[in-house]
């Protein structure tokens, strides 16, 4: 069978094969990922707009300035920022076919992401204790929805990172590892840039 030959051959080339046989020479998967990210811009754009419209509408209830803890959020922003760095390192390690480092950095990134999500859950609980529930006001609904959606994106990213780390551990990635890692990386960085925007628009700019 041809497949067998190919498979053996490819041991020597961990670089992406599929990509090279397309019309443009670009990988299908990367194209798809970039399209998805372009699409997701409109999703987050919509949620951010809703928040911008409603950030000042909380009647007599709690407003942004009553609940936000800039120091706390800054720390989690740093966590996410560093996770972006570790993600890049995972990608370059995978590019060098350095399985051990790839796994290390993937795990680190996943843990940092999990820390971020944990911090967010902690933050939300705090807000809730202060009296800011999901249904309290227009401000609260749009805040929780926006940051919640971001949190869900991070969570999905963490699941992908951890799965990837486990799979590389068992040496079981169909196709080429490098590209998979790169794809997850793109997703992860996107989640990071969304946070860059949220951090500024939601937390830093005074309402």
């Amino acid at each position, binding site marked *: 069978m041809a497949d067998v030959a190919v498979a053996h051959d490819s041991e020597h080339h961990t670089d992406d094969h599929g990509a090279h046989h397309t019309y443009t020479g670009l990988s299908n998967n990367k194209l798809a990922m970039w399209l998805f990210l372009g699409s997701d811009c409109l999703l987050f754009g919509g949620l951010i707009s809703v928040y911008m419209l409603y950030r000042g509408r909380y009647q007599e209830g709690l407003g942004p300035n009553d609940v936000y803890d800039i120091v706390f959020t800054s720390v989690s922003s740093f966590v996410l920022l560093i996770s972006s760095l570790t993600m890049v390192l995972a990608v370059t390690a995978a590019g060098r076919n350095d399985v051990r480092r790839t796994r290390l950095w993937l795990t680190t990134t996943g843990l940092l992401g999990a820390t971020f999500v944990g911090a967010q859950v902690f933050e939300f609980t705090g807000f809730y204790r202060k009296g800011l529930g999901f249904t309290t006001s227009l401000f609260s609904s749009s805040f929780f929805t926006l940051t919640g959606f971001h949190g869900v994106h991070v969570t999905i990213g963490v699941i992908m990172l951890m799965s990837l780390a486990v799979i590389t551990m068992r040496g079981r990635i169909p196709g080429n590892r490098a590209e998979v890692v790169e794809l997850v990386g*793109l997703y992860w960085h996107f989640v990071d840039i969304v946070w860059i925007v949220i951090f500024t628009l939601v937390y830093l700019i005074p309402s």
Partner: protein
Amino acid sequence: MTTAVEHSESVSHEQADEHAHPKDSFYVKIALFLAILTGLEIALSYVHWGSLGTYLLFALMIVKFVSVVMFFMHLRFDSKIFGYLFWTGLGLALTVYVAALATFQMFSKN
């Protein structure tokens, strides 16, 4: 079997593909840069500079955003097509949502 032929083909592609892959240290520098900007942002939010502060915050946000996209996400080194797809989405999002928000402000209250 045509495998051999194929391989020579892919190899040549790979070489063409070998465009600048920055070293790890480069990414560390970028991350440091981003960290500094973030620090600046946080500082800015404490000094109350009014609308100037807001503009600066916007500027910093854009710089951070673009840096991550260009370097961490490789758009700088990758095929232009990826960039087209992403920037189109981002551009559309900006246009329509800013325009929509603007109609809420322009709404004449008389």
